[in-house]
């Protein structure tokens, strides 16, 4: 089609294998399923690209010319659309926290794994004398614990992955999430109704047991995925993370088959979860300590949420984050700190004292031992209840309003003198 697209031999091989000499026909569509798999072993379907045929024929169309050109156009559209779906951004950021996998299969399209409210984009259709080819993509919208954007939009984010021992009608978006019915859940269940805000929903995320057997429903005939951290390390072949059955193996790829942007996936880190991605904290907790202190979890997760807006996007923010350096200058705190502070104090005010903590094996979100000099967990414990900023507290006998107003003219005069400096500074910002 006169488009220079780099072929990935492995993908070509897989596609040919799946095709097994046949072409898509009515009821037999070619589907490429893109899913995400974390280093913990959890996986989630992100997109399904379908090439379907239907019986509407266009007998008069000229194959060698019109159909060919339209197929070229379809291919270009496919390229354009692949960059536009939410999964693309995730695939660009994959690394050792999660990887993107693909699977090619023929047959009926199975859209169950995409969660509710998935959207469909029609890439295009081409009529041919033997039928109409149509290419579409159904993609998941409910990337609740995946996308930072979702954190802003849906307050009860954790509700999506809320554990099942709570009587709440939260739909489980991902069928791959394990059902864990543990006795510890009773305590958690008891405390739930008392705290009716979005934060308390988060408590269930710190469930007791790690995800054990994950069943991928339907597609692979019930072949269970075991969390294969040890397997990762053992894999000599860089390209293939897991192959369970010969015919339906899942292989690693960055983007759908026709993309030329390939990223070889490196083996994910085995052993302890590297909590760079905030999703780790959400559903892959192995700590049992928090079960007894659900209120503590509230504050912890309340901190997670504002961080989550920034952390996966730009982890450098942690280094420059004023929270890491205790706040000295109230006037220059970033909005991040402001929100953290308020969330932290609101969480604290709900009756929690950090003295009651009994922390065992605390793995806080995005704690990077190698970058931050201080372990984030330690830091958090120390600054759980920071003192009120003197400028924010009203009851400390600070300057009265009148005194403030009096000093204003002097301050204004000083600022006016420095106007040129400020202007130059503003110029540099633009």
């Amino acid at each position, binding site marked *: 089609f006169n488009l*220079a697209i780099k072929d990935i031999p492995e993908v070509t091989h897989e596609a040919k294998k799946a095709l097994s000499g046949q072409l898509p026909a009515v009821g037999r569509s070619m589907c490429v399923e893109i899913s995400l798999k974390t280093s913990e072993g959890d996986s989630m379907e992100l997109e399904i690209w379908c090439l379907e045929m239907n019986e509407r024929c266009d007998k008069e169309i000229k194959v060698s010319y019109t159909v060919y050109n339209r197929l070229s*156009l379809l291919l270009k559209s496919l390229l354009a659309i692949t960059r536009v779906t939410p999964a693309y951004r995730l695939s660009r950021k994959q690394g050792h926290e999660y990887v993107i996998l693909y699977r090619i299969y023929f047959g009926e399209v199975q859209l169950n794994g995409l969660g509710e409210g998935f959207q469909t984009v029609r890439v295009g259709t*081409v009529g041919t004398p033997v039928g109409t080819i149509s290419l579409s993509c159904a993609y998941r919208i409910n990337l609740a614990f995946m996308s930072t954007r979702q954190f802003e939009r849906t307050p009860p984010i954790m509700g999506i992955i809320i554990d099942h021992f709570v009587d709440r009608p939260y739909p489980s978006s991902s069928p791959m999430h394990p059902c864990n019915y543990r006795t510890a859940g009773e305590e958690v269940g008891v405390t739930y109704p008392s705290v009716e805000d979005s934060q308390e929903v988060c408590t269930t995320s710190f469930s007791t047991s790690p995800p054990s057997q994950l069943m991928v429903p339907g597609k692979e005939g019930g072949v269970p995925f075991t969390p294969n951290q040890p397997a990762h390390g053992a894999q000599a072949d860089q390209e293939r993370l897991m192959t369970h059955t010969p015919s339906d193996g899942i292989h690693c790829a960055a983007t759908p088959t026709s993309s030329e942007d390939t990223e070889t996936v490196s083996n994910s880190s085995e052993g302890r979860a590297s909590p760079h991605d905030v999703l780790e904290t959400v559903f892959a907790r192995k700590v049992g300590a928090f079960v007894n202190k659900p209120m503590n979890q509230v504050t912890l997760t309340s901190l997670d949420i504002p961080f989550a807006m920034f952390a996966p996007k730009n982890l450098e923010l942690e280094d420059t984050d004023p929270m890491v350096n205790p706040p000295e200058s109230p006037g220059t705190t970033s909005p991040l700190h402001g929100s953290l502070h308020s969330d932290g104090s609101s969480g604290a005010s709900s009756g929690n004292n950090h003295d009651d903590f009994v922390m065992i094996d605390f793995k806080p979100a995005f704690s990077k031992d190698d970058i931050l000099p201080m372990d984030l967990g330690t830091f958090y414990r120390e600054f759980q209840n920071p003192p009120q900023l003197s400028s924010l507290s009203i009851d400390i006998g600070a300057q009265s309003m009148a005194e403030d107003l009096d000093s204003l003219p002097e301050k204004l005069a000083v600022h006016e003198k420095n106007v040129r400096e400020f202007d130059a500074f503003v110029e540099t910002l633009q």
Partner: protein
Amino acid sequence: MNCRSEVLEVSVEGRQVEEALLAVLHTVLLHRSTGKFHYKKEGTYSIGTVGIQDVDCDFIDFTYVRVSSEELDRALRKAVGEFKDALRNSGGDGLGQMSLEFYQKKKSRWPFSDECIPWEVWTVKVHVVALATEQERQICREKVGEKLCEKIINIVEVMNRHEYLPKMPTQSEVDNVFDTGLPDVQPYLYKISFQITDALGASVTTTVRRLIKDTLAL
């Protein structure tokens, strides 16, 4: 034939104007370009290959695909740069629009010059907003990224309606349909123009420039 017209609207911050426009224009041109035609003796032709590449935006959380043609990219960047400067210099509320028009040339007899008959026009209306805080800018990055995703989907939908396209020309006619001036890609003949509107909505500025790719001018 009727010229079909598509209008897209974007609201962006000042520094996102260029990237947003380039994303749209490049996506449209990706669909409206082919490889260079190489005509053979028997009246048949072969089509060269077109490369593609991803472009990550610096000021928007967005990536788009464009043809790998540096000249085409330069031409678009130049046009967008002029639009951006005009927008900035106009004062006003930062409202403007840029049009990408695909046309066919129809040879007329002397003394009349050739006619340019448009068959598709893409108009992008740009509204520039000014943001105060870094947080707003961050949110704007994401929002504009999402909006552009929608625009790309819209463009693809229109493209795949398979409406009128000029017929593939013979060798002698190829310059009437395609822009053969580029070394590595052959888009349909196109021109880019823009307008800056002031608050009243009327076209004020005299800097409506026509970036004409073929050698013909009135």
